[in-house]
C-alpha cells in the first residue's frame, strides 16, 4: 500500500490526482488494524449497560459493503463513508465514559442503581419557585436556594430515593401477580420513555391526552378496542371471543403518571375506582392525589426518563419472576375474570357453519 502511494505521488509517471482513482484506491485498501483499544471500554457508566447499547441505533443498522448491490454513486459514497467511519472512528483521543442522553431510553438503569448522585445529576432535586409550592409537600423539601428575587425549593434526594424504591417495589409486586400497569406521560418528549417502560413491564402506555371517562365510562370510550385472553404463560387462548364482546372494558391495576398536574382527571378516576397510582410529585403538585408519590422534578426530561426507566425495569423484574412461577406451575390465579369455559363442540359447529355460508366470525370489539 505504501509503495503504491509512493509511486503515485513521487514516481516519474505520477498519475494525476483525479477524484475517480482515489475512492477506488481506498475501497480496495486493506483493513487498518485497530492499533488502539480503549482500556476503559469495560467500565460502564450505568451498571448493566453492554457495549452494543452504547452505539447509536442508527449505527447498528448500517448496511455492510457487501449489501450494496446498486452502482449508484450515492450508495457507493455511503458505503465508503461507513467503511471509513468504522476504520478510523476509534483512532484519536481517549474518550472517558460519560453521560449519553440516549442511554436513558435504550438502556435505562435498574432499581438497584438508584443513587443520590444519579438523582442529582438528573436534576430531580430542583423544585419550583417558593411562591408556587403546595404546603402539603413540606416534608419532601430540603430547603430553599436561589437568588434573592427568585428562590426555589430543593427536594430532599434521600426522600426521593426512598419513595422511588418503594414505587419500584409496588410496580414489581403488581407485575409479579399478573397485574396491568398503565404508564402515562403526556408532555412533549415523554412519549418514548413511557412506551419503553410499558413494553418492559408488558403493560400499557399513554402519551397523548387522557380521554376523561376512559375508566368510569370505559364501555363507551374503549368499547371498540380489542381485548384478548391469555394464560399463565402469556400465550393467547382462543375460544372466548364471544364472551369478550359482553365484557366490560379492561381497567389498569396500577397507574404510573409522570405529569400529575396535567392529568388530574385521570388520577381522580383512578381514585374513584380504587386503582392505586404512582406519580412524580413536584413541589407545586398536590401529593394527596397520588397513592405512592415520588417527590422529584417533573419538568426535567432527564429526571422523568430516569424515573420511568427505573420503574420500567422494576416491572421487567416482576414479569421475570412471574414467568418463572408460571413455568414451575406455582402461579397465583385470578378468579375475577368471570369467563366460562368455551363450549368446544359449539365453536366447531359454528366454525363449520360459518365456512359454509362464507361469513366471518364477529371478532370481539369489531364494529
Amino acid at each position, binding site marked *: 500500500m505504501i509503495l503504491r502511494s509512493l509511486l503515485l505521488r513521487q514516481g516519474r509517471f505520477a498519475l494525476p490526482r483525479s477524484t475517480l482513482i482515489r475512492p477506488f484506491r481506498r475501497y480496495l485498501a486493506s483493513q487498518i488494524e485497530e492499533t488502539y483499544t480503549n482500556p476503559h471500554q469495560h467500565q460502564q457508566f450505568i451498571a448493566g449497560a453492554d457495549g452494543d447499547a452504547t452505539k447509536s441505533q442508527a449505527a447498528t443498522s448500517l448496511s455492510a459493503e457487501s449489501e450494496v448491490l446498486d452502482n449508484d454513486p*450515492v450508495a457507493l459514497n455511503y458505503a465508503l463513508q461507513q467503511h471509513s467511519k468504522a476504520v478510523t472512528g476509534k483512532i484519536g483521543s481517549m474518550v472517558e465514559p460519560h453521560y449519553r442522553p440516549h442511554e436513558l431510553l435504550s438502556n435505562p438503569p435498574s432499581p438497584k442503581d438508584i443513587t443520590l448522585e444519579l438523582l442529582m445529576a438528573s436534576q430531580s432535586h430542583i423544585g419550583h419557585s417558593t411562591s408556587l409550592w403546595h404546603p402539603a409537600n413540606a416534608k419532601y423539601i430540603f430547603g430553599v436556594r436561589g437568588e434573592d428575587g427568585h428562590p426555589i425549593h430543593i427536594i430532599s434526594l434521600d426522600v426521593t430515593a426512598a419513595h422511588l424504591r418503594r414505587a419500584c417495589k409496588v410496580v414489581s*409486586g403488581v407485575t409479579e401477580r399478573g397485574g396491568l400497569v398503565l404508564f402515562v406521560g403526556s408532555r412533549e418528549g415523554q412519549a418514548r420513555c413511557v412506551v419503553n417502560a410499558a413494553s418492559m413491564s408488558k403493560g400499557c402506555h399513554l402519551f397523548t391526552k387522557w380521554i376523561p371517562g376512559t375508566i368510569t365510562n370505559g364501555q363507551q370510550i*374503549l368499547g371498540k378496542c380489542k381485548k384478548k*385472553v*391469555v394464560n399463565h404463560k402469556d400465550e393467547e387462548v382462543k375460544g*372466548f371471543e364471544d364472551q369478550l364482546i359482553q365484557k366490560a372494558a379492561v381497567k389498569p391495576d396500577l397507574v404510573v403518571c409522570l405529569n400529575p398536574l396535567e392529568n388530574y382527571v385521570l388520577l381522580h378516576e383512578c381514585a374513584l375506582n380504587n386503582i392505586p397510582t404512582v406519580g412524580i410529585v413536584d413541589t407545586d403538585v398536590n401529593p394527596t392525589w397520588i397513592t405512592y408519590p415520588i417527590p422529584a422534578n417533573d419538568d426535567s426530561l432527564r429526571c422523568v426518563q430516569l424515573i420511568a426507566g427505573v420503574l420500567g425495569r422494576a416491572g421487567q423484574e416482576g414479569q421475570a419472576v412471574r414467568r418463572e*412461577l408460571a413455568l414451575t406451575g*406455582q402461579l397465583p390465579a*385470578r378468579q375475577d375474570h368471570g369467563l366460562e369455559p368455551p363450549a368446544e363442540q359449539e365453536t366447531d359447529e359454528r366454525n363449520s357453519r360459518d365456512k359454509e355460508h362464507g361469513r366471518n366470525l364477529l371478532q370481539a370489539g369489531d364494529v
Partner: protein
Amino acid sequence: MESALLRTGFRRAMVACQNPAKRRVARQPRRFFATPVEPQGEASELQSAPDAVYASNGGRAAKSRARAERVNKDRAVSDHDQTFQAAPQIRFTSDGEQFSSSRPSAELIENDTASRRGRGGYGGGPPGRGGAASYGRGPPNQEDDPSRNILRHIRIVPASPSYFTATPRYTDDLLALSALLRKHQLLPLLPPGEAPRVAWKTIDQYKTELAEPIRSKSYNTLLQLLKRLNYIHPSLIPDEVTESLEKYKRDVQPHLNVPNPIIVNQYGVAKAVGRRKSSSAQVYLVEGTGECLINGKSLTEYFGRLHDRESAIWALKATQRLDKYNVWALAAGGGTTGQAESITLGVARALLAHEPDLKPALRRAGCVTRDPKRVERKKPGKLKARKMPAWVKR
C-alpha cells in the same frame, strides 16, 4: 362403651348445631360407607380400597378407618342379607383448606376420571414463595395441570399496549413508523422535491380501514412520517421501510396512469389521436413531400372552408414543415370545425413523436393543449344553455 359413644355423639351434634361448617364434617363418616356393610371378613377388603385413596394422608386415614370400624359394628346388625355389587370408587377430598375463606368458592372441576384423582391424591407441594403470590391461591399442587383447569390460569388483557389511547391501531402504526424512522434516520435522502410521487391514503380511507375516530391533526403527523421515510434514497432504502410504506398508499396511484408514448414505427410512421368537441381523428404522419389525405379525400375536397384547411395542418405550418411530412387522417364525429381541430391536435402529437424539441414552438402556436370545451346543454327555464326568455313585468 356405648355411653361413651353416645356422649361423643351428643357432643358432636351440639357442636354441629352451633357451627355450620362442622355440620358437614360431622356427616362425613356416613359418606364413607355408601356401599352396604358386609360381614367383618369382607369389610377389610372394602377398607383396603379406600385406603389406597388416602395413602398419603396417614393420620387422617387412620382416624377415618377407626371410625369406619366403629360404625361397621353398629350397622352389621341392621343390614339386610342381599348381595350387592360393589359401587364404583367414590372421589373424596381430604383437602383441609377447601372451605377456607381465601379459597374461591366456585371451582371448575372438569372431566376428572376417578383413576386420575385416585392416583396418589394431593401432594403437599412446595411451600409458596414467602409473602408473594397469595392472591386467591389454592394449595400449590403438582397435579394441578393448567391444561385441565384452564379457567384458573387465564386473565383478560388488552390486545394492544395502546388500549387506553382509545385509538390503539393508529397509535401502534404511529409508533412503528417512528421506530423505523429513528432506526434509519441517517440514511442519505433525495434532494427536496425529487421524492417519488406517491398518492397516500386519504384520512377517510384510513379511518374506514381502522374503524377508529382519528383527528386530521393526528393523521397529518402520520403523513409527515411517511413523507420523510419516502425521501430515503432508493438505492439504500431498506425492504422493511418499503413494505411499511406500501400499507399507506392508495390502491390506485393516479400518476402511474401514463399514456402510451407515441413512437415512430419501423416504416417511419407516427400515429396519434386528436379530439375536439365531439370529433376524433386518427392521424398518421410520415416524412414525405407534403401530401395530405383526410378520409381518402384531399384537403381542399374535404374542407370547403379555408379556415378549416389551415387549422388542420397548423402544426406543420407553424413549424415550417409543410413540405416535409405527409398526413393521412381519419376523422369521425362532430362537424367541420371539430374535425379540423382534432386533426390539428393529432398532427401536433405525431410531429412531437418525430421531433420532440418542437414542443415549445407548438405550444406557442396553440396546438398542444386539448381544448376541453363541449357544447353546453340546454337547461330548463332557459331558451338555450344561458339564453333567458324575455323578461315580462307581470
